[in-house]
Structure formats: C-alpha cells, structure tokens
C-alpha cells in the first residue's frame, strides 16, 4: 500500500483543544435570550388509554407558558414509526415512558413542577413484554392489525432470507446442532444527554439539535411540521455521542419547536438520563433459535435461524438478527420476526442487527467446533465467507488475515484450551474469538471547498462529528487530495445554512460517503487552480461535488475478528478481561489515532453488553427498573481492559483512498468473543445476555 502525505498519519482531532478545555459549545451549553425550559410528562403505565387530561392546575402555576398534549398537538413524528402513525403524544400510551404532555416554563424547576400538576386519568390495558408472547393468541394488540410488524413489502410476514434448501442442507449434514440464545435491550448510553433548542424568527425555525445528521434532521423537521425546507435550519456544532439513537429528527426536537411556536420564545427541552434510557430507544432484545448442519470434517451444510426481536410499540428499527453472512454455507434460512411489545422502543445502536446475532451464532459455532474437536480459529478459517452470500465477490476481503494475524498477536495457541474448563479453581482463564463483517457502503453526499488568496482552504461538509473525529477525517482527506498541509484546511460543519447535504452519521458512512465527496471537490478545485491560478486579493475559487458512487457487481464490506482472554473467579462468578486483541480490515485507515480509539470504544461497549447491561423490567407492572448509568452498570474506566488494535489494511479500489467502514464493526464480534472466552474458561455456556454473576454461579452450581 502506497504511503500518503496526510491520510494514514496519526493526527489529533482538529477540535481536540476546544473539547478538552471546555471551550466547545455543545447543544446543552447554548442559552438564548428569553429562552424557556421544557420538560415532558411520561406514562407510568406500560399500556393505558388516557381517559382525561386536566392541565388547569399546571397552567395556573406561575411561570408556565405552554402545555402540549394530544388534545392541542397532533403533530406526527414521521421517523418515530416506519409502519404506523406515531404522534408526539399518543393515546393509548404504549410503554412506560411514552410521552403524555410537554410543558414550557420560565425555568426548569417550574416546568418540572408543572408536569406533576397535570392530572391524567388512565385506563390501564393488558400489556406484553416478551416478543414471542406478543405473537400468541390473545396477546394484547399494541397497534391495529397485530403485533407482528409488517415486513419491507408491507406484508404481515417475518423477514426471510433463503438460499438453497434448508431441508437438503440438514439432510446432507453428519451432525445437526440446535440451540437458542437471548439478548437484552441495551441503551446507547452516549455521554451527552438529550437536548433540543428551538427558535422561531418569523416563519423560520432554527433547531439547535444534538444530532447525528443535520441533513436528515433538517428534512424531517420540515416534513413533520409541514414547513418549506428553506424555512428550517439545523445547527449542531459539537456533539457528545449518540451511537445510533440521535439519527434523524426526534420527537423532542418537534416538541421544542411546537412549544417555541406557541410561546413565541426560544425553548430548550432536556431529558434526564433516566428518560434517555427509557424514552428514546436502545438495541432490540432478541430470542434466537438456531439449527446448524455440519459435516464430519467441519464444513457447514445448513444454517437455520428463527428469531424474534422486541421492537417496543413503535417500529423504528429493522429488528434484524445478522451474523449468518460471515459464514460460507450452501443452505441458509433466516426467519426474523420484528414484534411489537410494550417495552421501551428499540432501534439503532452501533451495528444495529449485529452483536446480538453474532453472539448467538458464534456461540453455537464455537460449540460445534469443540464437539468436532476442531480449533475454533481453524473452524472459522475453514467456513468463513469468501463471497457475499456465497455469490457476490467482495471488493476486498481481509478476514482471513484478521483471523490469522489476530490469533498470532493474541497468542491463541498459548491462551486457548482444547478442553474447556480445565485449570484449577478458583481463577480459571480461557480464550475466545469471534468474527464479523459490516456493509461498507458508498453513496450520496456533497462537499464544497473554496480557497482564498491567503491559501486557506475552507471545506464545507454537513458532518457533526459524533465522536468519530469526522471533521478531522474530512480535513485529512482534503489535505491529501489538495496536496497541502493540514494547517491550511479549515472545516466548516454542523449547520444546514452553511453546509451542503451530508449523509447522516449512521451506518458508519461518513468517511466513505462524505469523504468521497471531499476528494471529488478537492480534485475539481485543483483543476480550477491549475487552470486559473490561485485566487488573488478578495477572490475565491469554489468547487462543489455531489457524488453518488457505486460498486458494479461487487459487495463492499469491512471485516473484523476479536480475541478475548478472561479470568473467571469461579467462587465469586466474577469475570475479568485479561487480554483483548481486535483485528480490523477497514481498508486504508485514514487516521490511525482516532480509528484506534473507535475500536477501543466499540470493544469496550461490547464487553459491557456481554457482562453487564440489559434493561430489566418488572413483569407485573411493565415498568423498567434499572434505567441509567448506575442501574445498567455501564463499563467504567476500571472495567475496560487494555485493547490491542491491529490493522489489516486491504487495498480497496473504491471509497476515498480505499477507506472502508469502521465505527460499527468495532462492536460486532466483541460480545461473542467474551462469551466464548468464558465458555473456554469454565466449560459451561451461558446463553442469555448479559452474562452476569448470578448466571455464571448458576451454571457452575
């Protein structure tokens, strides 16, 4: 791989100093003159019809400026449900945490007190939390037409992937393995809490959002409030993380806008951490039933999955259960049921379909390898994907290198035991690994670059930088293409009035989509400079690029293999990560410094999902019990192990300088790698996430 001048060199974030010194203005830091504060009243019930709302006492409280309920606000939140109409305030309320009213007042305290003065008469309705229970006869109907959420074609059928004939594949097998796994509702747990500030100037609305995509946020606010797009501006200058639950526009953006409109004053709407946990969305909980056919020599003949994903009462995410695509197998049948329940809403969280599916599948593949007495690393090398869905060639694939080089760096042979559970009590060590892949998309985005007579290049990109260092990435790519030092690049971001369209910072697309547009805009600018020379005096040269590249007849994927060693204290049921190696093929790495951070973050998140996290419900009331950082036992610095990151930089002919996707692959195999390491240590398999102390002591008893 050729060495480049800017791309590929470890570079601190261009806004690092601002961020660490407190100079960065995050959305929550913004205060506008005359600004009101807003709070939301939420349903205490999992499912209830609102018989009556009386806001008179709240209205009478000194300082209260406006109250929204379903009775005076029928705004539909378009991206809150892709199948049914979801209003900002729904009746019936369908989960504990569903919004009932929003109040704007002169200060936070008054707004909150007012929500408590709103009198709501609920008629409680039967509710259901488990996705399989929700499909049974007589289950409470959460939305008209039934609890199986319609598929992409609008039919009330599960989502199905079929290849070959599953019956034939199972017949051809020497052994058939069957097992089932479950995973929990996990919150995105991003550091920055949720906040939105709306301000009207005449008929024009500005929303200071905390969003992963100013462009979609902008489009959707205009759509949902029936405004002309030119009358909406979305600003997000510094963003404190989202991991998928700040995509698009949110109900609180719309509530803030409606309250601001009613009051004629700017309104800041904030959530508490607890609200963030229950009222936005998290990863969908799943139940997975697998059947896998394999020959004596370890070759796969069939993979069958019947899965159920609990989506909460509003269908916001795919509900997919991925993982099968990492294996080469002639006969595949995957049937996944996205099911409505009365739990908190489920949608995107870092690799939405993946870590839970890979946990189930890679747990079973591990068991198969042990029972056929094949080293799990060899088993995966033998069966790993070569073509996407055994059909479409990849633009580049470094999966084998990820596995081989990862295993070597990890010292797999030394750390892994052929017989799981060997070793003396109480501190038993074990090693596990898992692999994954993630779609590395190319697609539509835009960039504008201008150069002034001082030789400064102003790169206008509609990114917000959700923690990935996207601004720095764009600067590095621009510097590389323009052939100028990084200091000559000025990035303008996070404001729809000043930046062109950019794809939302979801799907790990920013580098590949918007980075590509930056390359093209920079090339165009270079062409102009070559033709006209550098601008003089007050002149500028401007280049724009609206790009939408495609890959003809090939699949473009990133690949990953993670290796974990744990020590399980079998007396205490305590798990400690001893060693962790993450090997990634993301094509060319644009900024190894921030890319390495992303891998560490993703792996740490996965370890938390494996060992700690899961929204727990009281079954009798349908009320969540452990919302928030404390209750969820989110990983602390002391819990995170040293994570060694290894780059397998494949040459990929597509994307900016051959860069492939990274953000989401980082979490995909981590949960399974930890689970497999625990199995190797104790010789017992925990099949329900999270793998907590009670479960470990339970299987050891």
């Amino acid at each position, binding site marked *: 791989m050729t060495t480049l001048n800017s791309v590929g060199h470890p570079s601190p974030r261009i806004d690092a100093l601002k961020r660490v010194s407190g100079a960065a203005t995050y959305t929550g830091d913004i205060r506008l003159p005359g600004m009101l504060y807003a709070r939301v009243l939420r349903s205490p019930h999992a499912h209830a019809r609102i018989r009556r709302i009386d806001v008179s006492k709240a209205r009478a409280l000194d300082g209260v400026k406006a109250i929204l309920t379903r009775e005076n606000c029928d705004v539909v939140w378009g991206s809150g449900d892709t199948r049914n109409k979801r209003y900002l305030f729904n009746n019936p309320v369908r989960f504990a945490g569903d919004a009932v009213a929003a109040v704007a007042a002169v200060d936070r305290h008054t707004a909150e*007190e007012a929500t408590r003065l709103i009198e709501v008469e609920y008629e409680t309705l039967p509710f259901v939390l488990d996705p399989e229970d929700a499909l049974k006869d007589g289950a409470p109907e959460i939305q008209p037409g039934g609890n199986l959420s319609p598929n992409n074609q609008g039919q009330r059928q599960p989502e199905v992937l079929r290849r070959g004939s599953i019956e034939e594949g199972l017949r051809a097998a020497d052994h058939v393995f069957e097992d089932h796994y479950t995973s929990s509702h996990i919150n995105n747990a991003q550091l920055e809490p949720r906040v939105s500030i709306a301000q009207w100037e005449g008929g024009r609305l500005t929303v200071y959002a905390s969003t992963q995509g100013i462009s979609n946020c902008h489009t959707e606010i205009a759509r949902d409030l029936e405004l002309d797009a030119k009358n909406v501006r979305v600003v997000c200058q510094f963003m404190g993380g989202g991991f998928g639950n700040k995509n698009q526009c949110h109900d609180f953006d719309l509530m803030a806008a409606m309250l601001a409109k009613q009051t004629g004053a700017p309104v800041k709407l904030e959530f508490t951490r607890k609200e963030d946990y229950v009222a936005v969305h998290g990863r969908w909980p799943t139940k997975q039933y697998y059947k896998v056919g394999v020959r004596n020599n370890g070759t796969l003949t069939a993979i069958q999955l019947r899965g159920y994903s609990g989506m909460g009462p509003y269908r916001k995410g795919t509900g997919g259960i991925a993982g099968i695509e990492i294996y080469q197998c002639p006969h595949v049948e995957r049937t996944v049921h996205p099911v409505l329940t009365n739990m908190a809403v489920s949608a995107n969280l870092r690799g939405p379909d993946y870590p839970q599916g890979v946990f189930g599948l890679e747990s079973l593949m591990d068991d198969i390898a042990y029972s056929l007495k094949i080293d799990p690393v060899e088993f995966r090398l033998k069966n790993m994907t070569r073509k996407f869905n055994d059909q479409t060639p990849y633009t580049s694939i470094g999966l084998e290198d990820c596995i081989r080089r990862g295993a070597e760096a990890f010292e797999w042979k030394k750390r892994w035991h052929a017989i799981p559970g060997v070793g003396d009590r109480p501190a038993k060590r074990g090693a596990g690994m898992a692999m994954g892949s993630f779609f590395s998309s190319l697609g539509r985005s835009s960039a504008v670059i201008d150069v002034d007579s001082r030789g400064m290049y102003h790169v206008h990109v509609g990114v917000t930088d959700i923690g990935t260092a996207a601004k720095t990435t764009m600067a590095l790519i621009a510097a590389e293409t323009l052939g100028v030092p990084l200091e000559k690049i000025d990035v303008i971001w996070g404001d729809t009035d000043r930046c062109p369209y950019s794809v939302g910072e979801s799907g790990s697309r920013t580098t590949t989509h918007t980075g590509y547009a930056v390359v093209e805009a920079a090339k165009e600018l270079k062409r102009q400079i070559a033709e006209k020379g550098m601008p003089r005096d007050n002149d500028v040269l401007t280049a724009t690029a609206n790009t939408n590249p495609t890959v003809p007849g090939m699949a473009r994927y990133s690949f990953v293999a993670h290796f974990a060693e744990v020590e399980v204290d079998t*007396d205490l049921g305590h798990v400690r990560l001893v060693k962790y190696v993450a090997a990634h093929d993301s094509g060319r790495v644009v900024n190894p410094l921030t890319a390495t951070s992303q891998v560490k973050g993703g792996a740490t998140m996965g370890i938390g999902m494996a060992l700690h996290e899961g929204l*727990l419900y*009281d079954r009798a*009331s349908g009320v969540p019990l452990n919302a928030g950082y404390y209750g969820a036992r989110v990983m602390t610095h002391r*819990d995170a192990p040293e994570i060694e990151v290894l780059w397998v930089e494949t040459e990929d002919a597509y994307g900016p300088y051959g860069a492939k996707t990274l953000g989401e692959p980082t979490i995909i195999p981590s949960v399974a790698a930890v689970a497999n390491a625990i199995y190797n240590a104790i010789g017992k398999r925990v099949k329900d996430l999270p793998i907590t*102390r009670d479960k470990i*002591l339970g299987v050891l008893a």
Partner: protein
Amino acid sequence: MKSFANVNARDLKDAALRLKEPNAIAIGGGSDLLGMVKDHLVQPDVLVNLKTIHGLDQISAKSSEVNIGGLVTLDTLSHDPMIRSNYRVLAEAAESVATPQIRNVGTLAGNVCQRPWCWYYRNNFPCFKNGGTKCFSVAGENQFHAIFGGGPSFIVHPSDTAPALVALDARFRIAGPSRERTIPAAEFFALPKVNAAKENVLAKDEILASVHLPRAGKNTRSTYHKVMDREAWTHAVVSVAAVLEMDGQVCKRARIVLGGVAPIPWRLDKVEAMLEGQRITPELAAKAGEGAVAGANPLAKNGYKVPLTKAVVRRTLEGLAQV
C-alpha cells in the same frame, strides 16, 4: 424537584430542633439526598444543613477511643493514616464506596444512614419504604435482595461503612433536641419486622453526630471485602467486614459482619464463636463459610448469593489468617 428552603444549623441542638419542623430533612454531603429530591423520593420543605456545625468533620484519637465526626468525608476516612493502620476495615470500606467524586462529598454519617438502593424503592413503587404496604421484590426482580432478615421488606442495607463499624464494635452518638444518647452500632440498625419503612432507630429529630471506635487491640487484623458487579460505582452484591484479634496463630476474638445480604449489617455471631480460640486453618475458614449461610432464606432470583457469601467469608478469613 419541589422547592425547599435551606437552613444552616448552628449546632447539633439547633439542627435537631429544626428537624422537628414538618417536612424537614437533614443534609450532609447531599450526594444521594439531592438525587432523591430530584426523583421525588423525598419532598422536603426544609433542608437542615449540617455542614455548618463546627467540629463534626474531625477525627480525634483519645486514650480510650477514636471519635469520628459524622461529617468526615469518605475520602478523608479512607486516607487517614491512623484509621488505615488501626481500623483497616473501615478505611477499605470507605474507599470502596461509589466514585472519587462521591467520596469527596459523601460523609460517614450519610453513608451509614443511606436509604436503600432497591430498584422498586428508587423507581417510586409504593413499597414499604415509600409509605406503602408491599415489598414488590418478593414476586419481582429480587436478584440483589436480602437472603437474611427479610420480611416484610427485603431490601439490603446499602452502606459499606456500616458493616465495618458494627464489626469494630463502634458506638454511635445520636443528638436530639433535648438530649444525646450513645448506642452500640449494632443497635442502631433495625430490621423491617421492627419498622419496614426505615433502616435504623433515628427519630425524625435525631442526628447521627459521631462514631466512636474502641481502642484497637494490638494484634488486631481487619479487612473489608466487597463483591461488586463492576469495578467502580456500585453497591455490594455481598460484602464482609472482618475483624480478628489474634494471639499468635490463635484467634482470640472475631467479628464478622456481612453487607449486601440483609436489611441491616448482618452479624455472624455463630461464626465468630466458631473462630474464637481456634487457629484459622483453611478447613476452619471453609467451615466458617458454611456457617455463614446457615439460615439463609433466598428468594427466587438471589440464590447465587448463598454460595457467593460462603466463598467470600471463607476467602476473607483465609486472607486475614495469612497476614
């Protein structure tokens, strides 16, 4: 949160008198109380600020005892060289609490009087602790609840320092509006069958003013072992505070108190008797572990605490014996 007034107490008596007012609550470090106000678990009209009371943030050693003011922060307590060398169990317990930020403001008295972290209570279910007549954990999610001393409420006492203080035979000085009283630490805590709404015997107008530790015996060893579900910022799943007074290899006197398993610090007097006058061998430690869980009464989802308690007691004793 509801509006409230803050009054700065001049002295203990002033504080106690002000606590007589309806809806008055004492505040020390406030690290938990303010969160409880925000969560509407308590809705005070008046917060009586104890931090303005002079001298309550001091540790003083006298010939017969050591006095620790109720306002001494957990951070100070965990770093105090005298506490660390003579009452290691207390320093370790204080150090295990929550996070550095919380230990910087959280006080010893606040930690001892901390309300339970049962998720039903903290989520405003109308349970005994919230003025109701039911413990929701019994038929619900009880994986962190009591295996000893439960009923009608099954909360576990959340304090790390409380088991240490009981194990050290501490005495608690309680100040009221007209008089003070000093009681043994063990008598401060109350089982739910005595009062299901509260965890201790403090009257509404009383304050835990200070804690008094008897002079540490010469050959005393002590430690606090806390099992946590992550490496920081969480309460004990199970903990053990152990204090052994040794005569050579022989244990002269033992105090073993569990945290995280009962609505009060759970003293294992039968296990103590088992150890006194004996050499602490691995066999005896194992026997003590077995003895520790005699009478355990787990609920549907907290049965794992039984083997866990057994192991923690055994290993703590083995560790202390090796010192």
